[in-house]
């Protein structure tokens, strides 16, 4: 997957978790929690969805890397570069 595809996948996960959110204006450098109404339980669902869809295990120590879209894509790029999109 390319960074662009990874970004699309994250958007897909976000729209799955928060279907009522308008994600079209999401800014990649701003923390998710400052733009989208996600509490800690919802945030954990991003991690859980990555595991469900791609068997990716994000260790708890790495959760801060998933704060914004930019940092998430950067974090996932080396892990997902050889994967195909499943959804």
């Amino acid at each position, binding site marked *: 997957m390319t960074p662009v595809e990874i970004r699309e996948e994250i958007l897909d996960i976000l729209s799955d978790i928060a279907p009522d959110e308008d994600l079209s204006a999401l800014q990649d450098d701003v923390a998710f929690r400052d733009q989208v109404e996600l*509490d800690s*339980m919802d945030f*954990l669902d991003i991690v859980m969805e990555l595991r469900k869809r791609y068997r990716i295990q994000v260790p708890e120590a790495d959760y801060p890397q998933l704060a914004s879209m930019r940092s998430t894509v950067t974090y996932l790029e080396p892990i997902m570069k050889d994967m195909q999109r499943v959804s």
Partner: protein
Amino acid sequence: MYDTIIIGAGLSGLAAGIRLAHYDKRVCILERHTTIGGLNSFYRQRGRDFDVGLHAVTNYAPQGSRRGPLARLLRQLRFRWEDFALVPQAGSSVAFPGVTLRFNNDFRLFEAEVAAQFPDQKDNLRKLVAQLIDYDDLDGSLFQRSTRALLAESITDPLLREMILCPVMWYGNARERDMDFGQFCIMFRSIFLEGFARPLAGVRLILRNLVRRFRSLGGELRLRSGVRRIQIEDGRAVGVELDNGEQLEARHVLSSAGIVETMRMSGERKELSPEPGQMSFIESIAVLDRLPRELGHHQTIVFFNDSETFHWERPQDEICDARSGVICSPNNFLYDGDVLPDGILRVTLMADYDRWCQLSADEYRLAKLHWFERTLASAARFVPDCRQHVIDMDMFTPRTIQRYTWHDNGAVYGAPEKRLDGRTKFANLFICGTDQGYVGIVGSLLSGILVANRHLLGDS
């Protein structure tokens, strides 16, 4: 071998099941009854649909709300707001002798009512609300403080204190006389700050959506499958034995049966078990030959009490206590053109489980008729008298509740001491539902979600 066996197909068990099945856990829900829903089920009788316990869904939030318990659980269960089809209430009240406080889903009405009837308490109410908005329900350390003591610090008028306590205790207090402050905060917010709503079709709509989702995710639901015993080995749950002797293995067991009931199923000695709850109810359901509004009754829910002091305890002198009650009309929601087929009034009173259990079959039938009359007579002091218009009736008693939900004492709100973290003394046996601490439809669903997230969605 299941990842998790869930005991009870009520709202909390179904919500937990959906979370686990969504994340590919192998999960089975076991329900002793022939149908789903637990304390919030539904049935059909003489051609009419009834809800079991539902008066209203609390914690209402309009479509588009992204905060609060309702929005949170919809996100977690991947439901759309429309899936619950909640219709807001018309308006409710707390009625004491000579003074009535109206409220609806806009808190300003209640504030205005308090300001008009208790002018010197207007700012005190603000203080109280600020205090309970700040209360963090995930922080258990303050949970058990006395509500009566804390309430007296802000609300200095004793009558207003009783009028605030009345609906809040009625809708979710497992403890007699006083209330845990944590529970009070959760309930006050859910009733006054968020509010009441109901799907036109009743709780069956919500339950059917939950079951459909659970099954579509691969979850297994077995009705008529009561758990006789939770098998414990070396301090861990290893599975369950059903009433028919069948044994099922699981890595985790999640029970919504109540903490006392769950400990008993695990073979725990009675004296080591927590105290069961004592608050049980009768509810009289009157089917009317016309709509309540045609009798001049427009309110959704009326919480009444016939003196200046509100007594929240198991009835001391009689089998029921007619001094206080809740009158609910499922017709009086803002359905926007849709109407229910019948006018219905549901009236709830506190009842004594032990006394109801001592009655013979004949005495039981007579007591039901007698208390149906007494209940409607008591309600007629606070809403238009509907007794000449009753065309059908039904009633549940503490015995009914125990018979269909297996909760000790027919205690609707469970044991007084809550297990907020869902843990038990056994490492992989957890509880959800009423005894975890959340009550009501939204509360039960959140309870299942919270316990599943915290303990059962790990890496195992």
